[in-house]
């Protein structure tokens, strides 16, 4: 049983090794097929583990494979934990992962570095599995960093363009800022609990009730728990793109679209949610941190949602929408609605991966014309202003986008409706969070409607759009499967059955997530109104040019993402450049090295002045040296007494 646990990680790793060393010889087709096969094999094993967890008594499988780090009291094993939470996420990672691998075969076809792409994708799946399967915080951190590396490599996949390389580096560095918080949190956990294993830590925190906890007689102060959870959450801010660290995710769209779907929508970016839910025992007793988490989540949802209203790049809309939806999940986790948070994570994985893949299909279709005609005229194939009327030319993509979009907008009976509704119900007791999330829900429906209309309806606004063609089977099949999942995914936690809630109970405890009919009805109505408004406004495809001055300045503010990048540039990046340059060129060369060389010059000067004393007799030099040494020794001897 325990060897089974390691297989989901091992399969993609085998793919990494074979494709990395033999990829050139095997050729693009074999590489893609092998990578997809390995990810699918991991999915099959994940299914087997899932069924084992469901029948096992403690709803968990533990496995350990030796020690990773063992120094003094610090003992970190290669320990894995497959329980209801991790097994569910494993299915998402490997399942959606396999679909995206399949899609990629069609998408990346013809790229000279295709084999490298599949190496990264397989490595990502393995790393993400380490993240959710590790049984201690340090292994979570390992996965956390390795998925960050894969993200870096995939964002910068087409690194010949400096812009892409910049985006990759930005993602890595901004994530590292969060990681500092995470690693400090881990250190504080070790100092406090003497272990990093989930099981031992949560056992001490106990039954979620008392804030003053006892560990070997020493109470764990509530302030320490607040500090631990806050530090961990800083990590989540980076990886799950929350305020103020969300700025890397929109730029991350520079990578290939299927990678965006897998990493920057469905899985990696939800690592922060996984971390909080995994640590729910800690967050539950740290009420002040949890409130903070809820607020940050709601603010992020609101701000990113507002930015998405005014984006023109088809992927940028989805990127900000992802940030916004992650805000929903984070807010839910902060509100203690852990099941709702994971529920939304799962439905979002379906519908947002679907939307990204559909967007990739659109971009692919848009590129058809310029590829076929070697057109010198370059229009941006991702700019929605160049699209329009694609409905008839790309029917499968169109229907996929509709299903994904309506799910995102929160219309019943699509999956997103059910999960979002649970979060909004959970926010009822926190007016500020509720208000922010409610506004965001309206934004969401509106920008989704705007996107659907601009891309698929009206008439084609460029030659590329009028000559667009539907994508091939390898790309269509995943769209169809994900469409089905986005359609029925709500069934995971339907009111009445509440399957997911019962499934996660061993990890998160019971949380009576109610279905609130008035709320559901109200938000469905709001979503419909927002969609209708978008239809009216964008139907003719010209609305964006006729804004009033006031509105257009707001529009530009939103389009520039609240100027947050510019703010960081002015407040952090430029001062850092200046400091670095000052320290390197003035302080280090002039000050420190200058002092050293100055002493050297001074010595030379003294030597020149003393030149008359230079007798040329080695004996006299020796004498002087001895005198000096003796004097110093005398000083030391006196000092040591």
């Amino acid at each position, binding site marked *: 049983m325990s060897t089974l646990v390691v297989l989901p990680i091992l399969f993609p790793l085998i793919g990494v090794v074979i494709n990395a060393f033999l990829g050139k010889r095997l050729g693009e087709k074999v590489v893609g097929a092998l990578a997809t096969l390995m990810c699918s094999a991991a999915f099959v094993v994940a299914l087997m583990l899932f069924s084992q967890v469901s029948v096992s008594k403690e709803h968990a499988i533990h496995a350990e494979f030796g020690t990773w780090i063992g120094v003094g009291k610090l003992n970190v094993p290669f320990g894995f934990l497959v329980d209801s939470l991790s097994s569910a996420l494993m299915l998402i990672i490997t399942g959606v992962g396999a679909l995206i691998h399949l899609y990629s075969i069609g998408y990346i076809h013809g790229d000279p570095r295709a084999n490298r792409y599949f190496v990264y994708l397989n490595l990502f799946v393995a790393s993400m599995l380490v993240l959710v399967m590790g049984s201690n915080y340090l292994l979570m951190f390992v996965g956390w960093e390795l998925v960050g590396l894969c993200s870096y490599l995939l964002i910068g996949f087409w690194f010949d363009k*400096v812009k892409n390389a910049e985006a*990759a580096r930005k993602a890595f560095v901004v994530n*590292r800022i969060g990681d500092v918080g995470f690693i400090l949190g881990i250190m504080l956990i070790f*100092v406090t609990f003497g272990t990093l294993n989930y099981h031992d830590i949560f056992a001490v925190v106990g039954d979620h009730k008392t804030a003053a906890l006892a560990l070997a007689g020493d109470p764990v102060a509530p302030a320490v728990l607040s500090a631990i959870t806050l530090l961990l959450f800083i990590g989540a801010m980076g990886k799950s793109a929350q305020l103020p660290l969300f700025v890397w995710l929109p730029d991350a769209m520079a990578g290939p679209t299927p990678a965006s779907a897998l990493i920057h929508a469905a899985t990696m970016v939800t690592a922060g949610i996984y971390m909080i839910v995994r640590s729910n025992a800690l967050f539950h007793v740290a009420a002040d941190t949890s409130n903070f988490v809820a607020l940050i989540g709601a603010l992020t949802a609101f701000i990113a949602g507002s930015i998405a209203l005014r984006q023109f790049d088809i992927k940028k809309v989805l990127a900000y929408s992802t940030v916004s939806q992650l805000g929903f999940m984070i807010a839910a986790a902060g509100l203690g609605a852990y099941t709702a948070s994971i529920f939304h994570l799962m439905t979002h994985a379906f519908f947002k991966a679907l939307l990204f893949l559909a967007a990739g299909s659109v971009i692919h279709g848009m590129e058809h014309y310029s590829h076929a005609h070697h057109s010198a005229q370059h229009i941006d194939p991702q700019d929605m202003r160049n699209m329009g009327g694609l409905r008839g030319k790309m029917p499968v993509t169109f229907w996929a986008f509709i299903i994904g979009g309506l799910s995102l907008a929160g219309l019943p009976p699509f999956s997103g409706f059910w999960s979002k509704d649970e979060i909004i119900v959970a926010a009822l007791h926190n007016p500020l969070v509720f208000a922010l999330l409610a506004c965001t829900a309206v934004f969401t429906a509106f920008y989704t409607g705007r996107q659907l209309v601009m891309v698929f309806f009206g008439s084609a606004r460029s030659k590329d759009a009028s000559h667009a063609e539907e994508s091939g089977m390898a790309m269509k099949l995943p769209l169809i499967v994900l469409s089905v999942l986005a359609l029925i995914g709500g069934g995971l936690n339907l009111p009445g059955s509440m399957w997911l809630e019962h499934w996660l109970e061993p990890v998160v405890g019971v949380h009576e997530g109610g279905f609130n009919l008035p709320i559901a009805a109200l938000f469905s109505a709001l979503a419909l109104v927002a969609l209708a408004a978008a239809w009216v406004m964008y139907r003719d495809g010209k609305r964006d040019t006729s804004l009033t001055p006031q509105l257009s300045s707001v529009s530009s503010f939103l389009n520039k993402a609240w100027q947050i990048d510019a703010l960081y540039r002015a407040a952090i990046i430029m001062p*850092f450049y200046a400091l670095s340059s000052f320290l390197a060129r003035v302080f280090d060369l002039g000050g420190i090295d200058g002092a050293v060389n100055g002493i050297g010059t001074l010595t030379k000067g003294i030597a020149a002045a003393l030149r008359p004393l230079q007798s040329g007799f080695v004996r006299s030099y020796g004498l002087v040296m001895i005198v000096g040494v003796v004097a110093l020794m005398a000083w030391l001897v006196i000092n040591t007494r």
Partner: protein
Amino acid sequence: MYIYSLMLSLITFIPVIGALLIILLSKQLSRTIALVASLASFVVALLVLNSFNNAQAGFQFVEVAPWIPQFGISYKLGVDGISLWLMMLTVFIFPIAIWASSGAIQHDQKIYYALVLLMETATLGVFLSLDMFLFYVFWEFALVPMYFIIGLWGGQRRIYASLKFFIYTMAGSVLMLIAILVMGVQGQTFDYEALVKQGLHSANMSLFLAFAIAFAIKVPMFPFHSWLPDAHVEAPTPGSVILAAVLLKMGSYGLIRFNLALFPQASQQFAPVMIMLAVVGILYGAIVAFAQSDMKKLIAYSSVSHMGYIILGIFSMNELGVQGAILQMINHGLSTGGLFLVVGYIYERMHTREMGKMGGLWAKMPVYGTVALLFVLSSVGLPALNGFVGEFVILQGAFQRNPLWTGLATIGMVLGAVYLLTMYQKVFLGKGKDEAVDDHGHHRQVASASHGLLDLNWRELASAIPLIVFCFYIGLASTPFFNAMSASVGKLLK
């Protein structure tokens, strides 16, 4: 078995025999002899490693012979869990550096290879000596070959750099010599173990400082670091590899071996200052590294930053801190040694180290780009590679002692990613500076230094692969390394 009791002397002096042979035999054989001698030393060291007893806290394989008995000076070597890995690092790095010398060293090969071997003996002597006087002899002697290697095979400002290196380190060592003499005279012996046992100077601040300054210059710790960028920039590639991977470790090793062991109370008193300097060094080195345009200078300053972590660990003065510091010395040797190799490969092709003249190399040289990325990631501290383990254990140890300064030190993790990935981007990503985009959007090759670059050949790969293997090995299975050092470190901190 008599030979068994001479193992450490064999390891230390086999290179000298090699150096003698090189001088006696023909020039064509020098590199081969140097390789064979350093590998022979490596093999004997493997035997020592194999029969090393992890449970024993004290010294093993001890050899003693009287040298100047009237002053209590003897020839005494021994190895414990602290010096074991530094010995292994030394015998591991030297063959690689010698292997990598063929391109960089174009004249006077005979003297060069002889000097490298002499340097190996000196550094091994530093790590294995158990007599303070003997230690000092090796310590000073280690300066000489490096002085000549920079001065004879270095770049344009080699004379300036080598003199600065020599005088700066020498000046630092004078005080240490006096301190050693004082201790020897007062204790009536120069035997290290005896002096530790006497414990006469445990709280002596002046003696602590006399040693600490010598070591701080060697490490180098902020603000004594300014010789390092000059030395690295001017040194030939293998010289930089040895300097970064092995010579700097003499300083950090000395702090553990002598300052912590001989002056434990003074160490406790000075620990806050040392921790502060270490953290300032971590941040300062990283910020200054970011502003560099010369790859070697950038890596030199990154060493100042990375060595800061090691000092931080040492003066945390607890199990995790010190063990992490020892492991990190090995890690820094592997990753920074690797980075200097990486710079060497491109310098031999493009004859420049200016990052502004590079770009897009990953596309032209895919293997090279991957090798460089691995060393960069190891240096950044990516988990699954070696750097992370050392860094985390150090920080965890430091956190127990001083959470605030440790918090500041972790900012170095961000800065490390900033300057190293910026370097990687400038050199390997984007477009080459020789590629211009013409009016029709087509790429056009322009003749320049990076035209027609060849990817790494098997010789170059052979120098990088052993380092990469150990980067992964330590990253995934650090326990054997910690196990061997824990008894000795435990005894030291008692």
